[in-house]
């Protein structure tokens, strides 16, 4: 007797059936009961209701979003302020000028730059753990799966993408709820295209300076562009990259576990583990990055910013950005934006000799007076800011979460190329239309 003679053409199916037959036999002897109507079923009548399902989903997401970013904001501010105070204090007691600047700007600035991410990450994982442990997260994926499917994404991709609007770091970390490796990496790769809250001040600055009455429209366009590009790139990657294309489509077979009351201990443990992981892995990369930028922007020692190494680099890169209409200041602002979008506005302020704490209106006036941007190149600069990699911290976390240099580089490089192409497209098409 061969396998085929005993089990037919599909031995795999026959073995699965045999296992379930044995289980049935065991249960018939030791188990009594039938599933009654549970509280969980009743809750689902509301949470998964045809009309209520989506509004409830949106409300809960919104609550998570506000919880993650609003509740943590004062704590982040506190950390930020504490470290700049600490820096000031350190520089006041250190005699040597270089060492004083190194300790206050590089070390304290670097530590602060890492630790400000801790509150949103802790709160995000607190919120996510609550949603997951309660059983709702699976339902959320069930509700939105259909919307994301045409783009090669799936129901569980939704929350990471939406969190990206607050900050891409928790967005990327939240992909841990996606069990399929392929879907997860795809969701990570397009997450930086979601415009995080740190990019908003850049849009506001540039749009306010050069777009006049169209400024709000310009900012809104960035949000629209962000969503369109994220979905579009997911579609393109899925179609063109062998890793995503070749993989057999991961079936979306999702258990909807009964609702349960989350336990405080497991929720807190979850939150703590994630926070520590972030500190250990992504934190070191961000910290080192900030120190490198400090070294480049403050050396040769004593030179003004426009003669620093980073400005030299900017001037060296200027020809590359000339087709987009950005001068070396635009190039340097983008270089700084690599570290964190939060410092782009401050960079412009320093260029105009206004100091980092300058009022936004003053900076905007200088942009217009000095002709740094036309409305068209300004808009292109906004698009570039939107698309190229959000910040060093995001690169750190992408590396950490994909565990792959290849995917990290891929995300950085496609972002740069796409940013350049879209900005060029804006300038060229706008030029042809007689704008500019």
């Amino acid at each position, binding site marked *: *007797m*061969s*396998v*085929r*003679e*005993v*089990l037919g053409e599909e*031995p*795999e199916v026959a*073995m699965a059936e*045999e*296992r*379930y*037959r*044995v*289980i*049935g036999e*065991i*249960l018939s*002897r*030791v*188990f*009594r*009961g*039938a*599933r*009654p109507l*549970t509280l969980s079923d009743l809750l689902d009548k509301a949470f998964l209701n045809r009309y209520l399902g989506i509004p409830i989903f949106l409300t809960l997401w919104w609550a998570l979003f506000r919880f993650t970013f609003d509740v943590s904001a004062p704590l982040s501010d506190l950390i930020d302020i504490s470290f700049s105070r600490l820096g000031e204090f350190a520089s006041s007691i250190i005699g040597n000028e270089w060492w004083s600047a190194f300790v206050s700007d590089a070390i304290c600035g670097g530590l602060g730059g890492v630790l400000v991410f801790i509150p949103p990450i802790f709160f995000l994982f607190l919120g996510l753990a609550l949603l997951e442990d309660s*059983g709702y997260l699976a339902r959320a994926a069930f509700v939105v799966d259909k919307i994301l499917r045409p783009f090669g994404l799936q129901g569980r991709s939704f929350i990471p993408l939406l969190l990206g609007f607050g900050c891409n770091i928790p967005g990327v970390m939240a992909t*841990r709820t996606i*069990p*399929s*490796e392929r879907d*997860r*990496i795809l969701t990570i790769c397009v997450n930086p295209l979601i415009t995080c809250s740190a990019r908003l001040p850049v849009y506001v600055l540039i749009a306010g300076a050069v777009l006049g009455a169209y400024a709000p429209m310009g900012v809104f366009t960035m949000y629209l562009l962000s969503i369109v590009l994220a979905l579009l790139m997911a579609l393109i990657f899925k179609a063109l990259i062998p890793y995503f294309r070749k993989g057999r489509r*991961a079936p979306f077979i999702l*258990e909807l*576990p*009964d609702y349960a009351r989350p*336990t405080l*201990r*497991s929720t807190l*443990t*979850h939150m703590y*583990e994630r926070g*520590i*992981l972030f500190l250990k892995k992504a934190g070191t990369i961000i910290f080192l990055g900030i120190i490198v930028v400090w070294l480049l922007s403050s050396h040769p020692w004593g030179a003004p910013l426009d003669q620093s190494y980073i400005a030299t680099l900017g001037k060296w890169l200027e020809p590359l950005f000339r087709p987009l209409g950005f001068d070396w200041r635009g190039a340097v602002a983008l270089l700084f934006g690599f570290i964190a979008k939060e410092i782009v506005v401050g960079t412009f302020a320093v260029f105009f000799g206004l100091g980092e704490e300058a009022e936004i209106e003053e900076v905007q006036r200088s942009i217009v007076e000095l002709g740094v941007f036309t409305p068209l190149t300004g808009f292109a600069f906004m698009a570039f800011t939107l698309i190229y990699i959000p910040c060093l911290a995001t690169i750190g976390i992408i590396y950490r*979460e*994909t*565990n792959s240099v290849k995917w990290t580089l891929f995300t950085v490089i496609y972002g740069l190329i796409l940013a350049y192409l879209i900005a060029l497209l804006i300038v060229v098409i706008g030029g042809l239309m007689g704008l500019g």
Partner: protein
Amino acid sequence: MREIEVALIGNPNVGKSLIFNNLTGGRAHVGNWPGKTVEKKEGRCIHKGVTMRIIDLPGVYSLTAASIDELIARNYIVEERPDVVVDIVDASNLERNLYLTLQLLELEANLVIALNKSDIAESLGYEIDVKGLSELLGVPVVPTIATVKVGMEELKDAIVEASKRGVKARVRYREDIEELIERIGDILRRDEDLTRKYPIRWLAIKIIEGDEEVMRLIEERGLIEELREVIG
């Protein structure tokens, strides 16, 4: 002090991480499985003079190697041969959970079952004959309620006990299937190296199912010709 290696496994949503926390006191080393993005948690538990190194395997429904999680879990059990494997079973969802249990028995893992969420099973009106279940599967079954730490001492006792005793369980399938397993096993046992490294019964079942990973292994070993007659 004696040190043993204990792997935790179970379906998703069975309360595995809670049991892990209960056993390790929440002190865990979190990392990744080599080269993978899947999280690996390790912790320690000292009980009655025995140090348990506790490894949290990914939550899986099956061990067919269809996903990275399943491959990690199964390779760990096959290659590392942990002293005890704790299979956490959701008492309120017994039928589907036992599917994984049966596959763990095929792997000849030294199994202890934690019958978790037994409070929920009770509230649903389910009656489970724990002793009977343990006898039919041939492995110890410990009812637990991880959310309130019920059954944890008993579970630790059962783990230590099992580590001294070794494997004795064996679920039997239909007679004609058992014959196939026996015949394939006889051929495999000619390869001594293979016999040392892998549970033969499991390999035989995987060969019957045409499992890709195992078929590749068999081909590497040059056993495919000898098996041709049986697998057709």
